[in-house]
């Protein structure tokens, strides 16, 4: 008997009671981004940590200016600068333990360097030498990811696998504001929350996805608000306040390590340079805006705090600058050496064993190289 046929006898009942899965209140970000520098909270910050952050920030800024200079000399194919965002980069590296994993985007070479990676190896991709210049397992740094947000599900899967194996490893995945519009961002956060994977997502909201401002990217109240829909906490932090970013990220990492599941952190920062050296930022933003953010510079903020509290003096600042200069000089000197590439590497790492088809093509290239060698009288490889 269908519902239509039993109409006379049908007695409507109220729907089953609806129960929200969780109270969204604890998941919602604070109304204001978390700040430490220049507030009472700064007094509780560890002076050694603040000095360490300062040294890493200054070195990071110098790294950014040096890498940008290398593009002008043709030593790097492209460089997406993180100038202005150094606090996020440095805090990301310092919030992790050695056994943890970092999943950087293409803009996050500085985070990889701050984690201890050889800067030349970190720049291999951008130099055009090879796609990844390091063994990801050595420093627990995934390859720099060029497609947007696709590294986020990798971080979730790795953290999930580590937990299945009983290892208390946390994965920190970095993405920009534009990347939050990608489908992989959604799928990664959803998987992470359902699996309660020990992952921290760090969104560096630097204002623009190349030229598109945040207002054209999302209608959400903040990017941190997106966490609520997945059932994970969202945190909002001043991305130029290195102490605050370190505090919030460290808390999220501890929470994940203790089995509390993922956290989404939105760091509000600004990309002072253009998207890459190939971009003209004057087409989509004004000087006044850039100047405002220069007034909220991560290095100046921390230097002011350290100086005010007598944690560093002029000699200390000079020593940090000197260290950064030496670092840049070493990088410059090494990057100015021509890399030696072996064309036969084209076939070396496609499969564990080359297919018969690749063996034929390898033989073809070898013959071409030998012919080239002979035609140059044996003087060139």
């Amino acid at each position, binding site marked *: 008997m269908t519902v239509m046929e039993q109409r006379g006898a049908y007695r409507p009942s109220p729907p089953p009671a609806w129960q929200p899965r969780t109270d969204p209140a604890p998941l919602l970000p604070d109304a204001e981004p978390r700040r430490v520098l220049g507030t009472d909270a700064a007094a509780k910050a560890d002076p050694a940590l603040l000095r360490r952050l300062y040294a890493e920030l200054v070195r990071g800024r110098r790294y950014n200016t040096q890498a940008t200079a290398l593009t002008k000399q043709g030593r790097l194919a492209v460089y997406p600068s993180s100038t202005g965002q150094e606090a996020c980069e440095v805090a990301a590296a310092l919030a992790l333990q050695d056994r943890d994993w970092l999943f950087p985007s293409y803009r996050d070479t500085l985070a990889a360097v701050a984690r201890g990676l050889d800067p030349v190896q970190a720049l291999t991709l951008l130099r055009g030498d*090879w*796609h*990844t210049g390091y*063994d*990801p*397992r050595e420093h627990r740094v*995934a*390859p720099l990811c060029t*497609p947007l947000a*696709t590294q*986020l*599900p*990798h*971080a*979730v*899967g*790795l*953290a*999930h*696998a*580590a937990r*299945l*194996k009983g290892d208390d490893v946390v*994965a920190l995945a970095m993405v920009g504001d534009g990347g939050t519009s990608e*489908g*992989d961002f959604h*799928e*990664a956060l*959803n*998987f992470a929350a*359902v699996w309660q994977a020990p992952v921290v997502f760090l969104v560096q909201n630097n204002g623009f996805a190349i030229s598109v401002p945040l207002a054209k990217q999302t209608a959400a109240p903040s990017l941190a608000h997106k966490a609520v829909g997945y059932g994970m906490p969202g945190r909002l932090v001043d991305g130029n306040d290195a102490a605050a970013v370190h505090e919030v990220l460290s808390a999220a990492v501890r929470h994940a390590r203790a089995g509390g599941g993922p956290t989404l952190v939105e760091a509000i920062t600004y990309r002072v340079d253009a998207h890459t050296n190939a971009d003209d930022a004057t087409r989509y933003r004004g000087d006044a805006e850039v100047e405002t953010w220069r007034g909220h510079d991560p290095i100046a903020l921390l230097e002011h705090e350290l100086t005010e509290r007598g944690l560093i003096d002029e000699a200390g600042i000079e020593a940090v600058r000197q260290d950064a200069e030496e670092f840049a000089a070493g990088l410059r000197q090494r990057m100015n050496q021509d890399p030696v590439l072996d064309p036969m*590497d084209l076939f*070396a*790492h*496609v*499969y*564990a064993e080359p*297919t*018969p*088809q690749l063996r034929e093509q390898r033989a073809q290239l070898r013959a071409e190289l030998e012919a080239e060698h002979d035609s140059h009288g044996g003087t060139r490889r």
Partner: protein
Amino acid sequence: MTTVALKPATMAQALTRALRDAMAADPTVHVMGEDVGTLGGVFRVTDGLAKEFGEDRCTDTPLAEAGILGTAVGMAMYGLRPVVEMQFDAFAYPAFEQLISHVAKMRNRTRGAMPLPITIRVPYGGGIGGVEHHSDSSEAYYMATPGLHVVTPATVADAYGLMRAAIASDDPVVVLEPKRLYWSKDSWNPDDPQTVEPIGRAVVRRSGRSATLITYGPSVPVCLEAAEAAREEGWDLEVVDLRSLVPFDDDTVSASVRRTGRAVVVHESGGFGGPGGEIAARVTERCFHHLEAPVLRVAGFDIPYPPPMLERHHLPGVDRILDAVGRLQWEAES
């Protein structure tokens, strides 16, 4: 030596057995996908695995193919061997960015430091009366992506053997499971399923001397049927089952065509830009002086997969294959 007891078994059962044996042999093998756990998969290929190995090893994931494959990448980075199910051919497309940009390239991007031993199970092809998005033949997309192996079984024994080989491989392998052969039965010895062929070897399913039918997956039984029917015309057709599309077994295929001098490539997917064009070109390059006729293709039409009531007109059948064989200039031989 005792006589081996052969029993009828379906391809789906052999695939299940392969997954179970692989999981029992290696604790790092993890099966994951939508509905693979409690339900045992919509085709029941993962039936019983969650119960036997636990939900951590056979996991019902959220419904998101990019997420399924993307998290599998991270799991493989940490030393696991994920086996992911895409449920239906056309449902795999959201995962293509992960497949092409990461799965296929991670070994290459990291100069060999980080291979990804991921098996991607894709139930594919038509002939089961599925509505749209449930019958695509997507092999050309996979074949065009360097870094992937692509295999497709046509027999119960090969389903077992190729699946074990795929899971054991240190490289990503796309296993295209012909849906309409899931319930086909062969005599098989489930007590000793063995026959794990290395990936990359074609096999001559039927010997003949008049012409070679080059085919794979769901079209293999159709070609064998065509070969039987061709006997009435006096044609003795050889049938080569590729089993592996990448790597491609040029040696077996070329040896066959050199013997017969004539070849027809048969597959369900569209002919334009399809696997048959690549195969015909390879055969021509290697066997030109042995060929008595151009290499012909019998493929699905170059149309979106049709509705179920029309699919029999689209899929290459015995008659269409025999027509092509008839066009191979038989006068030359008689």
